[in-house]
């Protein structure tokens, strides 16, 4: 009798467990289904960086089509100017720019900097996107080309001056990888070309390799670092490599970028190849970028 009772109890508990097991199955079943679907889909990595600029230079990010981004950037004087210069804040230079997203892969922008009364124009094309799932692509790739024109008065108006002498170019390949949700890195080999250089001995082509990254501290705040190493053989004498450290802070439709850098310029030519200050000497400038996006063309509803 006791044996039988035991037997019943075992069967009861077994079948109870069996029912329990089946209850969970429904959820598992959907999960399996999802996994199967994911294998057939390409999942593109999004938001490698918060905005289209890392600090001074470009990040891998593009603007979405139909979006206009108004960028206002300030760089103050060097901090080592002391209290007399109010730690650099007496000396502001700025760049106003408008960026446009044309297609999901193409963006262009124009800007005007007070520094050397400079105009700039750039295009950026992203031709490879990091992805997982059906297609596994470890990196994203983009090319960026910019042309810059200084419009300062000619230093010697008596000699023949050509407009082309005002132009400089920068071409950049951007290789980026989002390592994890909060960490991303990118490498930017760059060529800067001067149509006319100041001294005959200066090189017309400057080659630099940039490296940068970001680390999120909270979902809305990240620390960014950007460094451009100029190859010594292709470098204007007495210039330093540009090193910048900053924060991205996101609030609603704005992204604020606050940073410290030894570069004063905000265009490729000025910060990559014409940085004069050195961190070791305290030639550090405070600066910020404010970005405000506007939707100028709504995507067509499906």
């Amino acid at each position, binding site marked *: 009798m006791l044996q*039988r*009772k035991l037997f*019943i109890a075992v*069967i*009861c508990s077994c*079948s*109870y467990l*069996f*029912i329990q097991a*089946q*209850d969970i199955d*429904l*959820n598992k*079943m*959907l*999960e399996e*289904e*999802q996994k199967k*679907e994911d294998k057939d889909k390409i999942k593109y990595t*999004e*938001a490698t960086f918060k905005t289209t600029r890392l600090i001074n230079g470009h990040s891998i990010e593009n603007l*979405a089509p139909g*979006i206009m981004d108004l960028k206002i950037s300030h760089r103050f004087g060097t901090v080592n100017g002391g209290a007399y210069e109010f730690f650099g804040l007496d000396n502001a230079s700025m760049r106003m720019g408008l960026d446009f997203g044309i297609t999901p892969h193409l963006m262009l922008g124009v800007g005007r900097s007070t520094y050397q009364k400079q105009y700039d124009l750039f295009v950026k094309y992203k031709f490879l996107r990091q992805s997982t799932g059906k297609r596994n692509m470890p990196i994203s790739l983009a090319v960026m080309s910019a042309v810059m024109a200084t419009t300062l008065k000619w230093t010697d108006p008596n000699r023949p001056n050509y407009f082309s002498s005002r132009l400089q170019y920068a071409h950049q390949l951007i290789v980026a990888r989002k390592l994890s*949700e909060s960490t991303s890195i990118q490498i930017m080999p760059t060529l800067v070309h001067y149509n006319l250089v100041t001294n005959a001995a200066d090189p017309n082509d400057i080659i630099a390799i940039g490296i940068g990254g970001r680390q999120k501290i909270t*979902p*809305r705040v990240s620390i960014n670092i950007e460094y451009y190493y100029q190859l010594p053989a292709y470098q204007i004498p007495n210039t330093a490599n540009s090193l910048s450290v900053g924060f991205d802070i*996101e*609030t*609603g*439709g704005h992204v604020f970028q606050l940073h410290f850098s030894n570069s004063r310029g905000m265009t490729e030519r000025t910060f990559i190849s014409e940085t004069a200050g050195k961190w070791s000497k305290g030639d550090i400038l405070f600066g910020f970028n404010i970005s405000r*996006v506007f*939707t100028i063309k709504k*995507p067509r509803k499906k």
Partner: protein
Amino acid sequence: MKLIQFIPVVWLICTSFVQPVIYTSNNGVVNFRSEAPFELINASSKELKGAIDLSKNNFAFRIRIRSFEGFNSPLQKEHFNENYMQSEQFPEASFSGKIIETIDYSSKGKYTIRAKGKLTIHGVDQERIIKSEIEVTGNSIRISSNFSIMLSDHNIPIPRVVKEKLANEILVSINTELFAK
């Protein structure tokens, strides 16, 4: 005496070996809406997965957070995923549990039922009872439901700067049709 003892056992064995009758769907529609004083946000997804086990009145629903489209700008969508839902960390929202009422699935008709279960959004579980309309059509089961979700219930804070642009109460509507598997 012995027979009586055996009845629950037989019953349990029988029920546990009853072939589960499962209805599923892969393309249900989920809409959500935030009605704040300064901004109206709308987004929807057509990738709601659902399953109902008719034999036990159990159900499960899942949705990929990244599958939501719409919004007022691409940046808003990015912020939805990056800052609010943290969809890399919590890629899915789910609701699973039991239907309180017993429905006669063999006869066609519309029923109002209450679904009781665990609603998981942003990694936070909430016990919820959600009212739904069910229509048994013969070869399918249609489900539609309107309910609301409090962001504060799911540990999704609203930053002060967007307080007037994002409602704490998010209105959700669901429409799906499940077929026998």
